[in-house]
Structures are given as C-alpha cells and as structure tokens.
C-alpha cells in the first residue's frame, strides 16, 4: 500500500497547506516570526482591568483586535477568525465561506463573567428577589440573545462554522492546555480515516479576565515577577517561578496529501504523528516518573513511524513552572536518550506566554515556521542554568539550523497530554 501519498503504515499522509497565527506579538505569520526570532516579548502589564493588589498583574494579551471591554468570547471568536482567515487564504481552498471539510476547535469552556452577571442582577432589581433567583428571572424576562449566542459551549464553534462554512457539527474539544494539539490530532485522524479530504483545525484562547487570572493565581501557577513582566516567563531557567497567561489563536488547514497534490496546492509541511496519554496521578501534577508524558511523546514519535533520533528540534511545552519544565526534561530524556544532548529544545512561551487552549495549535504553527525558515526560535530570559535540566534551550538568541522534523509537546491540567510530530515537505 505504500506510495508517496501514504505513510509507512499505509495511512493517507496529512499535509499542511495553510497556517495562521495571532499572538500578543502580532496578527500573522510574518509579524510573529520576526518578533519570535528577534526575542521580543508580548508580555506586559494588563491594561483591560485594574490589577493593583493582585499577586500577578501582567499577561501576554492581544489588544489590537478588540476594545478590551468586550467579554472573553468576543475576542476568542475574533482571534480564531483572524487566524483561520490567514490559513484558508494561504491554502486557497474552497470558495469563500464554504470550507470543504470539518472544523476541529480548541476553545476554553464557556462561562458568564462578572459584567454579564451584574447586568442580569441589575435588570432584575425590581423583582424583589435575591441571588441566582433574581438572575434567572431577569434572564426569563429579558432579551439576552447576544449574550446567549456568546456564552453557550457551542458558541465559538457556531460562529466559526457560520463564517467559514465548515461541514458537519463544529467539534469543540478541551484537553486543557493540550487542547490545541488535540484539535490538530482530530483533524489528522479524520483524514486518515478517509472521512475528509480537508480539515480546519483551530485553537483559540482569550482568557485574560479577572476571575481566570485570580483562579490560576490561587493555584500558585503564575509568575509573580511584576517588576519585569517581559522577563517573567523564563522556561528552564533555574529562577523560573510560574507561567504567564497569554492570548492568541492559530489555525491549520490540513489535507490528505493526495487531495492537496490533485488540486495543485502548495504543501507547507506534514503532520507526521500524534500521540496522547492520560495521567491518573494528580489533578494538576504529573506522575513522578513522568510516564504519562513519556507515553504521549513516545506515541507521537511511534505514530510518525520514525526513530526518536530523527527529531531535529523540540518545541517544548515549557511553561516556566518549576514542576512542568523539570518533568518535561525527564520525559524527553527517557524518550530521546543520548539524542537529547544534540537536540535543541526551546519554549515560545518565554515570549508569548502560555496561550492555554490555543497553545498546542500556536506552537504547531511556530514549529512549521521553524522548519520553513531554518531558524530556531530562542528560549528568552534563560539567565540561570538549572543543573537538573541540562538542555540546549537555544538560550536568548535565535539560531539557524536545518530542521526536518519537530516534536511539539502540550500537557494539560487533568493529566491530558498530547504531542505532535511535524515534518518538512
């Protein structure tokens, strides 16, 4: 069965024919790549709500697509549309508004925010009721169509399906901070099953609002380096003290290689393999032996039908929390063995923060750009080597390198781990 349209297991090869990205560093691939390779930081003090008194007052927000006063889903949708527009435009696939395949979407769970609750509470002020009874009565007696269309769990997917005319139910997935990678994996699997010739895979997240910030802060997960926000995210550095929330979106147009070639599309790269493994140790921590993330990484490399020695570069999950970076190193060491010593590993989160549900998709696009440009994006703020993590983290300066095969890692709260292997055309 092996031919040039199929992989070593006889499955359809999955090509990437379009990619789009929005982060705090810019609105497209060109802007992001220039900033990422220049070591620029998108992390800054939060301007959209007052933060005095909070333990963390900074994030990598995207401030150029909305007025900052809109609720999170508005920006979540805008980010996703922006990235998908770039990806579909590059792929030149379908006719406008009719994407010829399904949508797989990584997006945060929907939840009303305080301005919405307050609006409902105020609308119910003549009811004589208190608490949620008052909110529910206000909901019943008012016209909240716009709020309703934004705060259902299907909302972001529905808006995207309307805009891009994707086929079937928009599939929204959450594997916490691995969601973006899972969305890509869903697209790969659908194409391998022969159900679709093309898939639109999107990860989007705009979670920098007050309650989300406080919640992560209460988990002691966030950096508190308030005096130097742009230096706060320091993956693998011994003085790392937590992650930095980030916003953004990325989109990939995936196609079966056969379909892409048949329509004369330009192939940017391939998704060679996907792997996952769930952890059952703890709600926020990895098994001490790292076996679950080892499993995810090994499964991705196995799924790509390559030896681990063929990995040229690792785009790390690299959150900058003390726990993650140590466990990720342990896992990489177990899977890559001696090959790790000659494999550069860098974390884009040092510049764009942790984009949560979107991270796996954003970092897949960065991995693709790494292959296409022959340049390794650096790990910024790498000031103090951690003797427990002896890695070539591409410290503080981008570096040219030939890269044919990238491993991109994503690990989530709840023990949901995913890894992707992306390859050159």
């Amino acid at each position: 069965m092996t031919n040039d349209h199929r992989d070593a297991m006889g499955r359809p090869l999955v090509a990437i024919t379009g990619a789009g990205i929005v982060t705090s560093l810019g609105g497209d691939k060109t802007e992001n790549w220039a900033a990422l390779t220049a070591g620029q930081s998108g992390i800054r003090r939060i301007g959209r709500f007052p933060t005095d008194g909070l333990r963390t007052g900074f994030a990598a927000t995207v401030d150029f697509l909305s007025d900052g006063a809109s609720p999170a889903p508005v920006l979540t949708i805008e980010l996703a549309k922006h990235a998908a527009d770039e990806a579909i435009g590059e792929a030149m696939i379908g006719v406008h508004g009719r994407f010829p395949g399904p949508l797989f979407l990584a997006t945060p769970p929907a939840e009303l925010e305080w301005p919405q609750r307050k609006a409902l509470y105020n609308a119910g002020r003549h009811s004589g009721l208190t608490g949620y009874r008052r909110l529910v009565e206000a909901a019943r007696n008012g016209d909240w169509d716009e709020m309703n269309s934004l705060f259902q769990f299907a909302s972001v997917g529905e808006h995207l399906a309307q805009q891009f005319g994707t086929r079937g139910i928009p599939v929204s997935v959450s594997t916490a901070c691995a969601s973006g990678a899972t969305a890509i994996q869903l697209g790969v699997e659908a194409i391998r099953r022969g159900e679709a010739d093309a898939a639109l895979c999107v990860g989007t997240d705009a979670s920098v609002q007050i309650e989300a910030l406080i919640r992560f802060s209460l988990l002691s997960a966030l950096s508190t380096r308030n005096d130097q926000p742009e230096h706060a995210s320091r993956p693998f550095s011994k003085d790392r003290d937590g992650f930095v929330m980030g916003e953004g979106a990325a989109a990939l147009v995936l196609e079966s290689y056969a379909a892409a070639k048949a329509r004369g599309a330009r192939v940017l790269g391939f998704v060679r393999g996907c792997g996952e493994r769930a952890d059952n140790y703890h709600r926020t921590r990895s098994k001490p032996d790292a076996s679950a993330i080892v499993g995810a990484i090994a499964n991705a490399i196995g799924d790509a039908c390559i030896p681990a020695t063929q990995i040229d570069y690792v785009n790390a999950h690299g959150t900058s929390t003390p726990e993650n970076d140590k466990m990720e190193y342990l896992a990489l060491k177990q899977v890559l063995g001696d090959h790790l010593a000659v494999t550069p590993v860098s974390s884009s989160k040092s510049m764009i923060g942790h984009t949560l549900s979107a991270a796996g998709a954003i970092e897949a696009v960065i991995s693709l750009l790494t292959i296409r440009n022959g340049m390794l994006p650096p790990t910024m703020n790498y000031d103090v080597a951690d003797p427990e993590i002896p890695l070539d983290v591409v410290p503080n300066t981008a570096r040219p390198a030939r890269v044919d095969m990238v491993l991109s890692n994503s690990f989530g709260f709840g023990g949901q781990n995913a890894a992707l292997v992306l390859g050159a055309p």
Partner: protein
Amino acid sequence: MGDDGRDVLITGVGLVSSIGRDTAEHVAHLSNGGGYTVDELRFAPYCVHPLLALDFAGQIPKKSDLKQMEAWQRIGVYAAGLALTDAGIAGDAELLQRTHLIVAAGSGERDIGVDCDVLDKLSQTDDSTTLAKQVLPSALRPTLFLAQLSNMLAGNISIVHGVTASSRTFMGEESAGLAAVENAFRRIAAGQIDIAIVGGALNAEREDLLLGYELGHNLWMGHYAPVWDRAQGGGGFIPGGMGAFLVLEARAHAEARGVQPYARIADVATARCDRADGATQRALAELYGALRSKPIGPLTVLSGASGAAPVTDEEIAFIDSLPSQGAEPIVRAFGSTLGHGVEAQFPTGLALAALACRHSLTPKETGNAEIERPFSGSTAHALVTCVGHWRGEGLALVGAA
C-alpha cells in the same frame, strides 16, 4: 459496518438518573412504565428531574477524591465506574491503560453562595472590578476551579478508575454528546483504537445551569408535560439529572475477552443545520438516508427530543417520514421520563438502546398516544435521535450484536 470498517459493540453500560441507580432499575422501570419523577417546586417556575440519591462511595471510594468533586463530576465518575465494572474492565490495570476515555461535558458547579455575595456587594458600588478583586481572591477556592473545568470530569475518571490510554473532552451542549459518541465509534470502526469508554453527566439541580439555559429562553415552565406536548406552551426542556457511560469495543477485541455484548452500533451520523424552517427535519432525513444497515420493519425510535420548539415538531415530522424508508417506527421519547441531559442526552439514548436490545424490551409509552403507540413486541433495531435545543443533530442505529 460494511467492508470498510469493523463492528463496534456496546459491552458495558453505566446509567443513573431520576428513575434508576443502575441498568437493572432502568430496565424494570421502562418495562413497567414506571412514570417520571419531577420536582416542580424547588426551582419554580422550572421543573427538574432530580437524580436519585446515590452512594457515591460505591464507585469513588477515596474521601479525598470525593472532596475534590462537586455533583456533576461525582455523577459522571460514578456512572463511568458502573460501565467499567459492567464491561469487566474495572480494576484490570493492563486493560485500563489501553482504554480510551471520551467525555461530553459542560462545566461544573459555581459556588452560588460566593457569587451571590459578590453580586450583592457589586450592587452597592460602580467600581465592579475593584470590588470583585477585593472579594474574589478570598472567596474563590482553588479546588473549586478544578471542579469547574470541563475537562476535569475526564481527569477525575482517569484518577479514580485508571483509564489512561487517552482522554478527550468534547464541549457544545448536545453537540458534545454527538461528537463524543461519533468520535469513539469512528476510531474503533476504523481500527484506530480497540476499546473506549464514552459518556457524559448532567447535574440538573443547579441554579447556575438553569441561568445559562434560560438566557436563550430554553426551559419549560409550569407543570410537567411530556416533551411531545410542549409546543403549544412555547416549548422548552426540563433538565434531568443523569449520568451515562458506555464501553464500546471492536468485535474481535470483545470476543477475545469473552465479554457478552449488549448490542452493535451499526452507524452514527451527525450534522449542524442553521435551524431555518424545516431545516432540522431535512437534516435528520438526510442523516437517516445515509445510515448504513437500515432495517425494514419495526424500528424502536428512542427519541432524545428535548421539547424545545419548533425542532421537536420537526423531529416528529421526520419520524413520520420513516415508513417511506421501509421502517415502522415505534416512538418513545425518553426525555419525557428522564428529562433532558444536554451533553449526556445522546449517550443516555445509546445506553437505553443497549438495554432495549439486550432485554428484548420496548419501553412503555410515556404520553401523547397519537405519537407513542403501544407495542408488545421486542426491540430488534433502535434508532437513537438527538436534536440540540439550539444546534446539533444526530442519529445512531443500534441492533443485535
């Protein structure tokens, strides 16, 4: 499946609701026409079907685990445990490591007390963010955040039951259940995986949940009515507490384990239409037309109709068209008895289909004699329907294994 796929069997069922704490209680209730349980007062003017009291420790033995979860997660973890036990997987570490987990989820309970306290203080000032900032850091509990995240039902199933091959959570109200079941079915049929547990849970007894649904005026108000009879009153659904998980397995895998299957899932199909007039009926008809292994003759239709208008009437019109495809539909709206499970609705329909097939059972009618006619025969084929109250349509065809 045809030549291009593998048979997908249901080999384990875990089901809890307002009418039963396990599969046996559901079978007894549905065979006898045991009616419904509804609470019309607690959340008036809305009704809910309250979940029967469960001894959660039966499936979640560690107190430390129970303390980390609110009701939604407990219901789901409990039902998942029942399904794993039923399939003979529970406690089999080697098999659990090869079992894939697929969950349809909304999110967990907010702390209503904290929210009300904050709202009360917000109403006394205009500076909402400052106040929220002063109140929230002391009021929010880190553990509550983890109880609220959509993917943490799956996280807790992995931790409590040891299911670890992979873990995926689908979101989007009813579409979440459709996507979850379809994903499990297609991966097994295509040979991508051999065994999975799939399902969802709803805690209906939550004001924050009712608020989310009532923003779109989706809830039924006043006295209980069967789902088919709600259109004249404007339509609406009655949330029902439920948890439904299924173990799905490739035939060869099930046979190698020597496990007795409930039924075979012949096909699953889903769609999204724009809900223009007639679009839902057309979408369902197209989905049905494309299903594999459609039976000729009696077909038990286990309708997941919510009671939302006008889509519930469009579903009736679709069912009325089934004879043109050779089927003789025997319709039962399980939502009239169990309520609407939103994310859990489609998995619940499949669980009931599995029970109907194994026990040669056609559930008793649940109201509206024009639509639900008596039938004394057994179920050989079941069509499970699920039409989202806002978006998402899907069908599953289930038959003897």
